[in-house]
């Protein structure tokens, strides 16, 4: 008969309380672990998305360039616009190798002409954008023949949603003022999975859409690649001097978005500290109750020769076991529910990068369990004050 066995039997006999305490600990640990896992995963996804770009600078209309960048990358609509004149000025910079205009707007497949009811972002691009996106590979088909061809390229997931094959005629609805306009083009290419938001988009030649919609001579952004050997920051500075043009380098955008994420994470961490405190208070309360209602038993154990040190060990064993099991359960919760949590995050953060946002890290898992066990062990010391003052005689007399 060991003290450990006695500790486990004590937990077993109070199974309802043990289960509730385990559940409480596991929820706190799951929140804690999820926050760290998602923070790390988000950082990696963001880095992956930015590092695959051949675009060095994005020129956008005046406003918040970081917000514009994030919106543009994820299919959102940005305020303001640039003109063809500004595009030409950018192209004339001696250190600019490629300057490719971008135009995007919301669209949906015409349900009368195509199966499904797919809504997404329609991107009007020029063929030189293929050079700025070296990670684009064609699963089937080819790039546009020209910048004014009536041709369509689909991202991998968009192609799956539309269920179209190369050569099919696709019809999309776009708004022209108050009117709805249906545009038709031939599907000439389907992209492989890129792991970016591009997988969901529809691409058409830039000149074609300029003819069709009211936004003639309107560009949402210009993607720029600089000459080899030039300093990106210097070119960015030069371009930002153009009238009504703001520039952002992709490194800056990545850094800023990461900073935004870190700020959010810091706010969440403050909330987390309170959650942890509540969890600890709950745990201390449980252990207090456990000691209080076992005063007779503890007094008797003292009469049998149990030393205070051994009884403290008993309480700490129970607490540490509870916290350890609760932490493991919490991490399993977090991993098991990561897909649902990820969906929730995507619903809340429109510009969340594609790919897996949750990142399981063994070091974080070990640190979480270790930290919880240490905190639990320390919290178990609080009720031991009662335990040390229990006199066997007091218990016997009360009988």
């Amino acid at each position, binding site marked *: 008969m060991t003290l450990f066995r006695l500790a486990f*039997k004590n937990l077993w006999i109070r199974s309802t309380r043990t289960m509730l305490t385990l559940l409480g600990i596991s929820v706190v640990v799951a929140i804690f672990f999820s926050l760290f896992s998602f923070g790390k995963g988000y950082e990696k996804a963001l880095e992956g998305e930015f590092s695959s770009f051949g675009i060095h600078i994005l020129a956008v209309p005046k406003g918040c360039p970081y917000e514009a960048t994030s919106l543009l990358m994820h299919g959102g609509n940005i305020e303001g616009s640039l003109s063809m004149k500004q595009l030409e000025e950018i192209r004339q910079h001696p250190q600019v190798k490629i300057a490719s205009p971008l135009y995007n707007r919301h669209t949906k497949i015409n349900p009368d002409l195509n199966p499904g009811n797919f809504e997404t972002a329609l991107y009007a691009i020029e063929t030189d954008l293929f050079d700025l996106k070296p990670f684009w590979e064609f699963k089937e088909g080819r790039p546009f023949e020209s910048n004014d061809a009536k041709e369509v390229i689909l991202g991998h997931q968009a192609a799956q949603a539309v269920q179209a094959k190369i050569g099919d005629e696709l019809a999309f609805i776009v708004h022209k003022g108050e009117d709805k306009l249906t545009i038709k083009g031939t599907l000439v290419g389907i992209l492989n999975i890129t792991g970016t938001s591009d997988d969901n988009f529809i691409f058409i030649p830039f000149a074609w859409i300029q003819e069709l919609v009211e936004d003639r001579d309107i560009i949402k952004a210009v993607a720029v690649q600089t000459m080899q050997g030039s300093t990106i920051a210097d070119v960015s500075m030069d371009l930002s001097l153009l009238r009504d043009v703001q520039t952002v380098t992709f490194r800056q955008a990545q850094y800023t978005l990461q900073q935004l994420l870190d700020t959010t994470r810091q706010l969440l961490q403050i909330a987390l500290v309170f959650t942890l405190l509540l969890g600890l208070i709950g745990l201390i309360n449980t252990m207090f109750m456990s000691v209080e209602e076992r005063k007779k038993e503890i007094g008797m*154990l003292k*009469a*049998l*020769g149990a*030393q205070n040190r051994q009884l403290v060990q008993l309480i700490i064993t129970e607490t540490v076991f509870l916290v350890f099991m609760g932490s493991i359960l919490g991490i399993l919760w977090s991993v098991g529910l990561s897909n649902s949590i990820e969906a929730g995050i995507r619903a809340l953060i429109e510009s969340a990068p594609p790919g897996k946002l949750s990142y399981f890290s063994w070091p974080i898992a070990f640190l979480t369990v270790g930290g919880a066990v240490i905190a639990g062990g320390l919290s178990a010391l609080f009720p031991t004050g009662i335990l040390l003052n229990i006199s066997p005689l007091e218990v*016997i007399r009360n009988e």
Partner: protein
Amino acid sequence: MSNKQLQQKKASPEIRLENVSKYYYRGTEEVHAVAGVSLRVKPASFLCLVGASGSGKSTLLHMIGCLDYPTNGKIFIDEVEVPNLEKRRINLRRSTFGYVFQQFFLIPTLSVEENVLLPLSFSHKKAKPGEVDKILSLVHLEHRKKHRPSQLSGGEMQRVAIARALMNDPLVLIADEPTGNLDSHNSEEMFNLFLELNKSTGKTLICATHNMELAQKAQQILTMKDGKLL
């Protein structure tokens, strides 16, 4: 004599009380639970303290068993005064005694065998092979080894408590109203068991009871009234 020496000692000790008193306060009123008691308990004897409820027999028993401290007076074990030990040492000293109470204080989650083995966990000892069976056979419970306290009768539970008290091989067995929760048949059996243990093991037995009939079985009977020995 150190705790270790006392624990290693095999023969029962002589216990001597010299003018021992115990006072406590109930509000502002001073209550004399035990007032100037002097007595001598011979080694390997069977002593019964009798008296009405509130006469001070339990308080006296608790002080002999190091569960309580005298306000005045001295207690000697084998002519060595029991010092006012710090709490940790008192716990160790207690392991040289075996206690049996009116309430059995068995741990409900543990089996009979585990309850009996419990004192060894605290003294970091291991039971020798067959030791539990031997002790359970002393109290005629070898067939109930795997049962839980809830599956036993009151008499059986008290016998488990006695077996547990014997497990540490105490020099003195202290029993405070051990038959208080038992019927007459079981009470009779319990005292017969005490007699048997006293004879077979040579352990000193000090028992507090208000049952005069049962107390007649002991070698020495001391009657208490208002905290004093008559």
